[in-house]
């Protein structure tokens, strides 16, 4: 599923965008780049020349370089010799950009998905974070920072399992 709002794509651009969007995230390989919401656009700028716009989750996210390389490899494989992946910051990526299917896959993978924050305002504190293992909302924060910049470490008080939570951003 590709949700990039680019209405005027040619059939070839649409096909390449779908292929680029199907590239798995290097750190959370259950998610595709399209599901993560980091692919901003794709344009044929000449014969055999494609420009792709990618946005990072966090400013310093090191995965962006692996994502770029993977996109280049996939598009080269489609006979596109010149692929330029550009990093764009605006509008800033938000965890709200993760698709519904992406959230479902995260939970299935054992990572509590981010809560939807909406256009303005933070997440209501009262809204609990659900344990991806047993479904309990009785969970506590162990550490604000976990295995990657985008995750926090929590523990479920019901099943006692620790788990990663994709922090709202």
């Amino acid at each position: 599923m590709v949700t990039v709002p680019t209405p005027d794509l040619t059939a070839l651009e649409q096909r390449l965008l779908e292929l680029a969007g199907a590239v798995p995230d290097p750190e959370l390989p259950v998610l595709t780049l399209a599901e993560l919401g980091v692919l901003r656009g794709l344009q044929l700028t000449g014969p055999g020349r494609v420009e792709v716009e990618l946005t990072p989750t966090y400013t310093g996210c090191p995965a962006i370089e692996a994502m770029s390389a993977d996109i280049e490899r996939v598009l080269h494989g489609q006979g596109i010799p010149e692929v330029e992946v550009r990093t764009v910051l605006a509008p800033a990526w938000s965890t709200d950009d993760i698709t519904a299917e992406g959230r479902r896959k995260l939970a299935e993978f054992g990572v509590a998905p981010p809560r939807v924050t909406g256009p303005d305002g933070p997440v209501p504190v009262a809204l609990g974070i659900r344990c991806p293992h047993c479904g309990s909302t009785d969970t506590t924060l162990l550490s604000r920072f976990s295995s990657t910049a985008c995750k926090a470490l929590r523990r479920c008080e019901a099943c006692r399992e620790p788990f990663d939570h994709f922090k709202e951003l």
Partner: protein
Amino acid sequence: MNPTPASTQAPARASVPAAPPGAALALGDDALVLSHRLGEWAGHAPVLEEEVALANIALDLLGQARFLLSLVGDEDELAYLREERAFRNVQLVEQPNGDFAHTIARQLYFSTYQELLYGQLTAGDGPFAPLAAKAVKEVAYHRDHAEHWTLRLGDGTEESHRRMQTALDALWRFTGELFDPLDRLDVDVSALRDGWLALITRTVGQATLTLPTGPQSGAWTAGAGRQGIHTEPFGRMLAEMQHLHRSHPGATW
């Protein structure tokens, strides 16, 4: 200084006015130097969770530094090939890690400032707005982390209280420089200073600590980091940060 952005980054969009290079360099150096200081905790943090937290904060700052320095020139050349006097970071961020309380005090002072600064830069469509809009949310986590530790250490044991107070006092004289206006940077400095002081006063009070009362800059200083005048530990930090790149030009992993 080379006004051309680094070739692969291309962060500035055509419609956005060019960033004032002095301000981009100053803010980029703040982020770069603090990132390196926090990275020095790797392998030494008191608990594993803090090891990960400080490394993650360092990574966010490094990402900001890369964007900001790329507005001025080649990010690697700027980071690895400049002499000490060419760096424009505030002296606060170059201060050694000290004990954990010193690192937290430095984080509290700096991340509170940076969140307010980026909050202001987010408004409008200036050249720093795209980065600020993104980074302000990351920095909010940094500030939150520093506040929680300030509360735990200040309102913890006698020993942790004493150390946290010592750290707040020791770094206080470096905080005045945060509010020196930067050339062509559209920021309301007095609002920044008032907002910063209100937040720091609140957190320090909640932590049962005492707000330092001394001057916010040292009378003895020859100048400030924004003018390229740095404190003695900075030279040693730079030597360590730059030596690999200078010893093996062009080396890659």
